[in-house]
């Protein structure tokens, strides 16, 4: 699929000879990546070249060499990437839980069943579209999130949270008002643009800081803040409209919103999104 002259050029760029990686091995990795990205379609020569030229070829060569069990490559990989992986793990869980996940990754990277017949190194799934370091962080994040979510499924309902739910109604209509606002909010959130919803959920559900959300959306934190403010205005306006359409007067709407805000426990966004988010213990972290 990839012309041999192009493969040779890419091979030279990748410095694969450093790991004594044969040309065929790199070519196979490149073709796996092409097949995955273009999913059976045949790209034009120009598109193909552009894609291949944009790859992190040195990282791909290292991953290929590690995947084939090259000792020198492994030594280099461990010394260069383990510290970064541990730093990422500590950022996920300072208590060390994520380090265990990071350590367990090495077995997968080396080949689940050990070197030999039938082994499949995780490196096989690295195609060079990102740097190896970012890919490793993504793998770690994936394993960590799946572990957290699995653990959460086996945790019984939070009794303390249920117990702390408000039991007395401040306003006789509070329950009805909360239900109305919840329905209106649900509808309003559903109608948001996906990017607005992504920012909103990242902020309220994932407790990310504005800067962290900016890293996801590729925006400056001031821009994220501006968009969130705008989204909140949209939500408020949509909710008011929804309540008005359901026959409420302005006075009732005002009372309804005041009641909903007073009884915040009834309007948890995470619950609204029906997710199993992990909340940080320290709210102050949000501004870090």
């Amino acid at each position, binding site marked *: 699929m990839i012309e041999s002259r192009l493969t040779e050029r890419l091979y030279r760029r990748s410095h694969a000879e450093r790991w004594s990686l044969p040309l065929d091995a790199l070519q196979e990795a490149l073709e796996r990546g092409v097949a*995955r990205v273009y999913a059976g379609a045949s790209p034009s020569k120009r598109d193909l070249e*552009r894609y291949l030229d*944009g790859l992190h070829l040195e990282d791909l060569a290292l991953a290929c060499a590690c995947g084939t069990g090259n000792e020198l490559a492994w030594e280099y990989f461990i010394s260069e990437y383990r510290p*970064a992986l541990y*730093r*990422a793990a500590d*950022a996920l869980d300072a208590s060390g839980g994520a380090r265990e996940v990071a350590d367990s990754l090495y077995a997968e990277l080396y080949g689940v069943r050990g070197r030999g017949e039938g082994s499949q190194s995780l490196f096989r799934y*690295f195609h060079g579209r*990102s*740097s190896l*370091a*970012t*890919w490793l*962080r993504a793998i*770690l*994040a*994936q394993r*960590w*999130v799946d572990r*957290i979510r699995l653990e959460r499924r086996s945790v019984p309902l939070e009794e303390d949270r249920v117990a702390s739910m408000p039991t007395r109604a401040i306003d006789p209509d509070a329950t009805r008002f909360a239900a109305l606002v919840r329905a209106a909010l649900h509808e309003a959130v559903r109608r948001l643009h*996906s*990017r607005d*919803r*992504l920012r*909103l*959920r990242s902020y*309220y559900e*994932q*407790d*990310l800081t*504005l*800067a962290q959300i900016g*890293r*996801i959306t*590729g925006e*400056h*934190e*001031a*821009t994220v*803040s501006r968009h*969130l*403010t705008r989204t*909140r205005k949209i*939500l*408020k306006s949509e*909710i008011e409209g929804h309540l008005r359409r359901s026959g409420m007067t302005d006075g009732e709407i005002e009372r309804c919103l005041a009641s909903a*805000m007073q009884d*915040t426990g009834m*309007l*948890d*966004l995470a619950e*609204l999104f*029906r*997710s199993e988010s992990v909340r*940080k213990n*320290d*709210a*102050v972290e949000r*501004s*870090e």
Partner: protein
Amino acid sequence: MDQHIDAESLAAYMEGTLSRRERAAAEAHAADCPRCLHLLAAMARTEESSQARRSAWSLPVVRWSVPLLAGATALALWINVRPHRPFESVPPPPTSEDVSLPAVSTPAPEADRPASSVEGLERQGAKSDETKTRADQQSAGAAPQRVTSADALQSRTLPDTATSAPAAPAATPNAGATAPQPLEKRSNLRFEDTLGETAAARVAMPALEIASPDSMTRWRVEGKTILRSTDGGKTWNSESVPVEREVTAGSSPSPLVAWLVGRQGYILRTSATNQWRRVPFPEPADLASVSARSEREAEVTTSDGRVFATVDGGQTWQRR
């Protein structure tokens, strides 16, 4: 995108190397998928750890200083070699207090200015109550409040960059409420903040001017107007295209072709007299510089140092 975001796409997403279509699909999926949103959040949380050992070349101040110095050098060269400039009328060199240069443009209206520092300053006062509340909560050892949709419904403004400062240590109760808060984290500082107010005032952002290789054809951006000169800057004619966002840099590979780049992925290109077109860019990143080789080939650098190139006039962009 119906499927979950895989590790490779996730990594490419965070590095900004997905195509626009792939990126939009991933975002749309993550907006409604708890697992993938959680993944993106985990990546965002670990991003700082990956940046902790970046080289000095990737620091914002260095990233900005390169195009800034290049721009200053180009400006100095232009001033020195500009044709038809009588030597006898050269004014004495400006002092550091001389804020306005001959080519200074009319300041853009507040609404058009980037939100980085201006809004941050404006909002600082508005957010101080929230900062105070959070700092007080921490210093008093209060349990963190759960953020609910009621928070989203309230009309007060979100915590902004002004509240992004680390809270006061618990050992000094209420210190966070009174101590001056830094505006933004260092890693998020932008051009104006990096230079500092004084330095920014000295630079005073002259109107952007670029010259084609023949030096007679020039373009100049003043506020929302693009001007063109074909006599080396003696006379200027307004071009019929309104500038929608702040333009930060430009490049002209020939007398008929010019590229202008600016905030939030804003790119304009002309390939014939007075025929400007908006060029799409895959993400709303602030663009710091552009180097064009023709009407089809150009390379732009984002404010965070990433380089994107196009060979088809901006229809597609490839990260370098």
